[in-house]
C-alpha cells in the first residue's frame, strides 16, 4: 500500500526538478513562488548541488545559464514581475541555445498587481515576452502531482531541445495542497542533452538533421564561443544574410519539427461532445467539474486540457473542435489563449471565452451557465 | 656570450595607423607610409625595449630577441 502524501504544488515542482537531475538553482524571493526557492535551499546542499539567492531575477537567470553552460541542469523560479526581468536573458538562452527551466507561478498583473492572487495572464508573455523571433516551450500543470511530472518534463525538454522551457503554474496550483500518490513503479526518466563526440567533425551550433546542435560544455575538452549575437555554426558572430536567416529559422524548426514529441493534451469526453471546453492550469479543474455535471444533466460536454501551451497544440485543437457547436475557453485573463484557439477554429463565432480577472477561479457554475446559453 | 640582435616583425595587413608605435619608440625606428601606417625605416636602431609591441593595439608588431641572421 503506497502512502499518499499531502503536498503543495510549489513543493512538488522543486522535488520534481531534483528528481530530474537539477543541481543548480538561482533565484530571487517573490510571492507566490518563494517556497520553491526555500525547498531548493534546503535540499540542494544535501545533494552537493548549488543554491544561489541572487541580487535580482536578471542575475538569477544569468547565473542559471552560466551553470547550464558547464553542463549542469539548472532552474529558476519566479512570478510576474520577476518573469518580466528575466525576459532579457530568456532571449539569450533562446539564441545561445542554453538549456534552462523558468518556473513562473502566475499572479495577477500587470506590475505588482495582486501578488497573492492567481491569474493566467502571462501566457502570451511566456511566448513573446523577449524581443525577436525565438522558440520557447511552455507547460501548464493542473494538479499538484502534475507539477512534479511537468517539472521533470520541462527539464527533459530543455535538455533535449537546448531551449528555455517555461513552466506556467498559476498561483492556485502553486499553493494548492492535495493528496499525491507516487506508485512504486513510477520512475523518473531523465533525458540528457546531446553531447559533442567529435569536435573535428562537428561544430557547436551546426545544422544537424534534427535541428539540435551537439552541446560543448565549458570546462570540457573543447573550447568554444557562446554569444547572444547572431552567430554562424562555429558560434562566432556573423553578418552574412544567409547565416542570419539560417540560425533564426533553425531556432524555430528545431521545435516545430518535433511537435509530436513536445505537444501534450488530455481529452475528457471530447469525441461525442457538442460543446468543447479548452482549458489549462487550475481552470481545467473547474472545466472538468463542469463537464461531469453537464453530462449528468444529459448535455454532451467535453474538455480538451492543454498541457503544452507553447508550441500551441494547433492540430489537437482543430481536430477536437471538428463538428462542435461551441468552444468555450475559460481563462483567468482577458482572453490570451482564446486568441490562439480562435486562430485555428473554422468559424470564430463558435468561440465563447470566459474571462475572470478578479483574482478568483473560474467556477464550474460560470462555465455551466455559458453552456446553458449555448444549449 | 655574444648577444644576438633584435629583429622587428611587422604585419602591415593588421596595422590601423593609430601612430602609437611611431610616437612611443624611443629610437625613432618607425616612419609612416602613404596610408599613415607604420614602416620600419631604421631597424638597426632598435634597442629591443618592446614598447611598440606592448602598446600596439592590433598585434602587428613583434620583437624577436637574440636573433642571429
Amino acid at each position, binding site marked *: 500500500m503506497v502512502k499518499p502524501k499531502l503536498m503543495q504544488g510549489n513543493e512538488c515542482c522543486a*522535488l520534481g526538478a*531534483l528528481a530530474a537531475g537539477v*543541481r*543548480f538553482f*538561482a533565484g530571487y524571493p517573490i510571492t507566490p513562488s518563494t517556497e520553491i526557492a526555500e525547498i531548493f535551499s*534546503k*535540499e540542494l*546542499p*544535501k545533494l552537493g548541488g*548549488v543554491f*544561489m539567492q*541572487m*541580487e*535580482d531575477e536578471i*542575475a*538569477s537567470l*544569468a*547565473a*542559471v*545559464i*552560466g*551553470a*547550464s*553552460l558547464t*553542463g*549542469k541542469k*539548472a532552474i529558476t523560479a519566479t512570478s510576474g514581475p520577476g518573469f518580466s526581468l528575466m525576459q*532579457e536573458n530568456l532571449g*539569450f538562452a533562446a539564441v545561445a541555445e542554453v538549456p534552462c527551466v523558468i518556473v513562473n507561478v502566475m499572479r495577477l498583473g500587470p506590475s505588482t498587481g495582486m501578488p497573492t492572487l492567481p491569474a493566467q495572464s502571462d501566457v502570451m508573455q511566456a511566448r513573446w515576452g523577449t524581443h525577436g523571433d525565438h522558440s520557447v516551450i511552455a507547460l501548464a500543470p493542473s494538479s499538484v502531482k502534475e507539477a512534479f511530472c511537468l517539472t521533470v518534463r520541462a527539464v527533459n525538454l530543455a535538455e533535449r531541445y537546448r531551449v528555455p522551457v517555461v513552466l506556467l503554474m498559476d498561483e492556485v496550483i502553486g499553493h494548492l495542497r492535495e493528496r499525491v500518490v507516487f506508485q512504486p513503479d513510477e520512475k523518473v526518466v531523465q533525458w540528457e542533452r546531446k553531447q559533442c563526440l567529435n569536435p573535428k567533425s562537428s561544430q557547436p551550433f551546426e545544422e544537424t538533421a534534427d535541428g539540435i546542435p551537439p552541446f560543448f560544455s*565549458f*570546462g*570540457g*575538452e*573543447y*573550447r*568554444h*564561443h*557562446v*554569444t*547572444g*549575437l547572431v552567430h554562424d555554426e562555429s558560434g562566432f558572430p556573423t553578418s552574412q544574410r544567409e547565416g542570419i536567416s539560417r540560425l533564426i529559422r533553425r531556432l524555430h524548426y528545431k521545435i516545430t519539427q518535433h511537435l509530436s514529441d513536445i505537444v501534450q493534451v488530455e481529452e475528457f469526453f471530447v469525441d461525442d461532445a457538442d460543446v468543447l471546453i479548452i482549458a489549462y492550469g487550475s481552470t481545467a479543474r473547474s472545466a472538468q467539474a463542469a463537464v461531469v455535471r453537464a453530462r449528468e444533466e444529459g448535455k454532451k460536454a467535453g474538455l480538451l486540457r492543454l498541457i503544452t501551451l507553447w508550441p500551441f497544440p494547433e492540430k489537437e485543437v482543430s481536430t477536437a473542435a471538428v463538428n462542435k457547436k461551441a468552444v468555450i475557453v475559460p481563462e483567468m485573463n482577458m482572453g490570451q489563449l482564446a486568441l490562439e484557439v480562435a486562430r485555428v477554429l473554422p468559424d470564430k463565432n463558435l468561440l465563447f471565452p470566459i474571462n475572470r480577472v478578479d483574482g478568483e477561479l473560474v467556477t464550474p457554475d460560470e462555465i455551466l451557465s455559458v453552456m446553458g446559453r449555448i444549449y | 656570450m655574444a648577444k644576438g640582435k633584435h629583429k622587428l*616583425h611587422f604585419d602591415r*595587413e*593588421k596595422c*590601423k*595607423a*593609430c*601612430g*602609437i608605435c*611611431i*610616437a*612611443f619608440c624611443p629610437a625613432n625606428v618607425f616612419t609612416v607610409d602613404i596610408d599613415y601606417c607604420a614602416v620600419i625605416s631604421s631597424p638597426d636602431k632598435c634597442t629591443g625595449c618592446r614598447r611598440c*609591441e*606592448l*602598446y*600596439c*593595439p*592590433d*598585434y602587428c608588431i*613583434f620583437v624577436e630577441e637574440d636573433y642571429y641572421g
Partner: protein
Amino acid sequence: MCAVYHKYLRLDHLPHIWCPGCGNGIVMGAFIRAMEDLKYDQNEVVVVSGIGCSGRISGYLDFNTLHTTHGRALAFATGIKAAEPRLKIFVFMGDGDATAIGGNHLIHACRRNIDMTAIIINNCTFGMTGGQFSPMTPKGKKASTAPYGTVERNFDIPALAQAAGATLVARVGIYQVNLLRELIVKASHHKGFALLEVISQCPVNYGRRNQMGDPAEMLEDQKGIIKSAGLGQGLENYFGQIFQSEQPEFIEEYNKMIVQAQKKGGCDV
C-alpha cells in the same frame, strides 16, 4: 609571429573590430601575456564579457568564452564559477557595462567575494553606441548626449568596489602595460573577488570630442596623470594596487555549508 599571439588569440578572427588606437587591444595584449605567466590550461579558463566594445574581447581569446547580455557578465560568471569551481574566471566589462546597467551585479559580486577576476576597461564613455556619457565620464567632459559637458559626477570604482566588499582592488592605466600584466596575474592568484579598473582610451568617440589629440597623445596624457597621481581628484587619485584583504570566499563557505547539510541527513526526494 609572436608565440603568445598564436597560443592565446583566435587569429582567424583578427583584425578586431576596434578603432585605431583603442585601448581594448592594449588591455587584451597585456591579458594574454599575463596568461603566459599564469600557465593555466586553456580549457580550464572561462572569459566572460558583457556588451559594448569591451564585450568583443571574449570572441578574440582562445579559451572557453561567453559574450553575455549588457551588464550581466558578472551574474553569468557567478553561475559558472558556482557550478564548476575548478574553472578560472576572468570577466571583462566596460565602464558603462559595469557601473551603469551592471552596477547592481558589480556590488553584489564584490559582496559575495566569489573567486574571480573582474576587469573594468574604463574609457569614460559608451563607445560602441557613439560616445554617450557614462557613469565614469568625468564631470564637464563632452559626450554625444552631453554636448555642453556632463553635469553628473563619476564613480570612484575602486572605492565603490572596496566598500562593497571586493578583496583585491587596483587601478591601472593602459600606459602601465607591464603593471597591468602583473596585476592580472596577482588578481588571479588572489582567493576572492579581485577587481581591476583599467583606465583606457577611446580616441574616436571620447578623445576627439574632448580635443584630447591622437591615440599617442592620449596615452602620453595618461602618463602625466599617473605621474601626478594622488594630487588631484577623481581619476587622478591612485594607480596600482589599492587594497587587498583576506575574507571568507563564497565557494569555500558554500562547501562548508554542504558538509553541514549532509551531516543533517538525506534528501527528502
